[in-house]
């Protein structure tokens, strides 16, 4: 079974530039998450989708971050304009369903460096 795919793996940009990350979840997984992991910290949830609807985006900095999950499969996370403090690994995860007892499966992550 293929895992959660993310791209690009690494991205270096200057502040005020924009960047987009892509995630393809495990086939059939209805729930998709984007997490931000700053070096030395635990992952922090940015946004959670159930199919193509947003379940929780309370911790997403909406003035600069946006995310979408068209057709309930792939998802894109965008940052515009980037700030130095956005340097982090952006992890995508998927789960079979929202309320079930199953676990989350994480992708390899996209490492962003903002200079």
């Amino acid at each position, binding site marked *: 079974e293929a895992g959660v795919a993310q791209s690009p793996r690494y991205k270096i940009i200057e502040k005020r530039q924009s960047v987009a990350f892509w995630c393809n979840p495990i086939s059939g997984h209805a729930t998709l998450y984007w997490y931000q992991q700053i070096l*030395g910290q635990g*992952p922090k*949830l940015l946004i959670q989708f159930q199919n193509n609807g947003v379940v929780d985006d309370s911790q997403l900095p909406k003035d600069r971050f946006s995310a979408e999950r068209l057709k309930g499969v792939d998802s894109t996370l965008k940052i515009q304009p980037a700030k130095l403090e956005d340097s982090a690994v952006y992890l995508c995860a998927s789960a079979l369903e929202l309320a079930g007892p199953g676990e989350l499966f994480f992708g*390899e992550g996209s490492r962003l460096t903002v200079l």
Partner: protein
Amino acid sequence: ELKVEQNPLFLSMQEGKNYTIYCNYSTTSDRLYWYRQDPGKSLESLFVLLSNGAVKQEGRLMASLDTKARLSTLHITAAVHDLSATYFCALYSDEKLTFGTGTRLTIIP
């Protein structure tokens, strides 16, 4: 605000020794996860604990959940070098997963 706290944050232990990582949380939940993360890698699921008193074991690792005390533990038995990693607990509550601060474990020969 939900808090998930782990201790210790850093742990160096000798091979062959036993130790326990603690995960305390601030709200009611009966679903807790443990993950492992190697440097530069993503998170690998270790255990899913789904009820009070749940205990799961895999190799030298054993996890337990006490929902009344709002505490989960990850016990390491006779540590070996390849257990060196960062370990996270994560609590499922309000339809989202909140991660702890992480415990960086280093096993010294």
